[in-house]
């Protein structure tokens, strides 16, 4: 009756989003009065499993089998489904990363299970576990129950603290994977990752985001300078991504990344509903916009009505001076 967390690897490394997801798994397991296992698939999983063994899981299962060495939803969902059926897990969860969002609904489809996306909390109700999740760009919190014997869910990493080592030692074992690599209809070809010195958007303590107000590549450069002065991650509004000024995976919002840094600085962002959905859980929000009536000021803790082309250079200077002293 245990539950299973599917951890995430890329290019041999356990991805950070796994750690808040472990916390979610722990909370859910406690609520259900059971324990949780972790499944780690892909190249380097054996070594990765060692990293995950003292996070509170009962078992850490890993596989580097050929069919699952690289991530495809097809192979990983099949391998996970086989394991769930074999071990009788009653709930399966993963972080709501692009991988989790790709994988988990497929797994739910294979298991004929109900699924909850982007869970931010759990509680016990009359009909079992009630999952809390945002809907309508975060303007509603839905209470959802799942009616199938197996529950599938992705969890929003910003809603859970990252799990830290020290909670006992799990049994580490190789997972049985019998997926036929030749029978798969999909094939991983390659990653084309953006190389960046900046921290990852979803992990950063400080995020600086560029909106339509930055106008062009020059404006983007200015925002990048501010991000670098602060050691921050760079984000963008949908308009900026639409314009092709910054890549898609930097988009903060309902349909992009959900972030919750200690400090979020929105530069030239009007504050459309769908953008706010991605950043309103930041601890401190700063908005710099020349339009005094921009809706971003409704959610900002500190609003500066000013032309970003004047304010941001000054801010960079101040930050650099403060860092130097």
């Amino acid at each position, binding site marked *: 009756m245990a539950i299973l967390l599917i951890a995430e690897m890329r290019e041999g490394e356990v991805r950070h989003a796994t750690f808040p997801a472990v916390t979610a798994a722990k909370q859910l397991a406690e609520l259900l009065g059971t324990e949780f296992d972790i499944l780690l698939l892909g190249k380097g999983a054996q070594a990765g499993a060692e990293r995950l063994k003292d996070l509170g899981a009962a078992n850490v299962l890993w596989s580097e089998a050929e069919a699952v060495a690289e991530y495809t939803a097809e192979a990983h969902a099949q391998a996970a489904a086989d394991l769930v059926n074999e071990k009788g897990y009653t709930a399966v969860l993963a972080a709501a990363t692009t991988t989790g969002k790709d994988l988990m609904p497929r797994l739910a489809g294979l298991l004929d299970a109900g699924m909850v996306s982007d869970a931010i909390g759990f509680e016990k109700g009359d009909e079992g576990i009630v999952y809390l999740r945002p809907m309508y760009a975060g303007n509603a919190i839905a209470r959802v129950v799942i009616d199938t014997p197996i529950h599938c869910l992705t969890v929003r990493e910003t809603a859970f603290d990252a799990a830290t080592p020290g909670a006992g030692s799990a049994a580490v074992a190789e997972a049985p994977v019998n997926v036929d690599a030749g029978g798969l209809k999909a094939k991983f070809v390659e990653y084309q990752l953006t190389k960046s010195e900046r921290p990852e958007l979803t992990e950063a303590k400080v995020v600086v985001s560029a909106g339509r107000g930055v106008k062009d590549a020059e404006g983007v450069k200015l925002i990048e300078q501010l991000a670098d002065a602060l050691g921050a991650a760079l984000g963008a509004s949908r308009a900026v991504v639409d314009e092709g000024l910054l890549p898609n995976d930097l988009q903060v919002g309902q349909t992009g990344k959900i972030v919750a840094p200690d400090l979020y600085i929105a530069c030239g962002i009007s504050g459309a509903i769908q953008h706010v959905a991605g950043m309103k859980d930041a601890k401190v929000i700063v908005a710099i916009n020349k*339009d005094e009536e921009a*809706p971003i000021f409704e959610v900002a803790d500190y609003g500066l009505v000013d032309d970003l082309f004047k304010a941001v250079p000054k801010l960079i200077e101040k930050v650099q001076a403060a860092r130097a002293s």
Partner: protein
Amino acid sequence: MNFELDDVQTLVRDTARRFAQEEVAPLAAEMDKTATFRMELVKQMGELGFMGVAIPEQYGGGGMDYRCYSIVVEELSAVCASTGVVVSAHSSLCCDPIYRFGTEEQKKKYLVPLASGQMLGCLGLTEPQAGTDAGAVRTTAVLDGDEWVLNGTKIFITNGGQAGVAVVIASTDRSAKHRGLSAFIVPADAPGYKVAKEEHKLGIRASSTAELVFEDCRIPKENLLGQPGEGFKIAMQTLDGGRIGIASQAVGIARGAMEQAIAYAKERQQFGQPIANFQAIQWKLADMATEIDAARLLTWRAAWMKDQGFKNYSREAAMAKLFASDVAMKATREAVQVFGGYGYIDEYPVERYYRDAKITEIYEGTSEVQRMVISRALLRD
């Protein structure tokens, strides 16, 4: 007439609204400031059928009715009145007369490129001595062999500076006064066609208003539009349709201003609360909304009559334009008032709406002329 939009009309509105918000609105302030219309919008709108909404598809248009035309002009004008009038003057004053009075050859040669947005059109009617009094037109056209030779000056010509073709009203028989007027299709590249001057205006600054001079301007004989002597009739019927366009523009301006005022009133805090909580503001908004709806209904009625093929809807078109232009003036004035000091500076667009609104009381027949048309219909026989 149905008060609700049907599926097609709803789609037309949604498409026009989205195009207006995504493509036109970001350019509006800049076009106003520089007093230059971005011609790429004409091309884009042509591809969507906006440059000839009520012209059949076979002639490059959108193949819709006048109700849809009114909807498109309103949506464009709600974000940029200049764009609204560029489309309206082009469609009502140039495409429409060619469609209704032109020969098949004329339609193929001129209407297709016009309605599909490959070029812009205008109407040359007003002259220094002949504004409202169309019978006083002094521009002449004389047949010389296989060509008409035009001489004269047309002023305040909307789209004049950027048009590729003009429908020009000229006298072919001065002694017959308005019965001696004829209409011509004059390409801008005809010899003797000159854009003499661009006007600097209070509002609708992005749209071109030019003086056109014809000096021994020669056009082929077959460019006569309709029959000789039909010029006055063509001009008057054209203006009836044009008034639906301007009424729609006025409704759009008023609605755009109201929407800005509503958004601002909800945001702007005074005495610790949004000013929308104050009755003084609420009543302004209520009046605006009521009057805008009334103006739109009058406009749609005139459009409906045109769609139904009513021979005469001059009175209804005049009423729509008279009322809607008045509503545009009031709504923009009140919108500026809601914004207070911010309404008076160009950081916010309402001051542009306020400037743009005034022309709707003047062009395509002043409000006084509309009253004349209406009262004439009331007092007839």
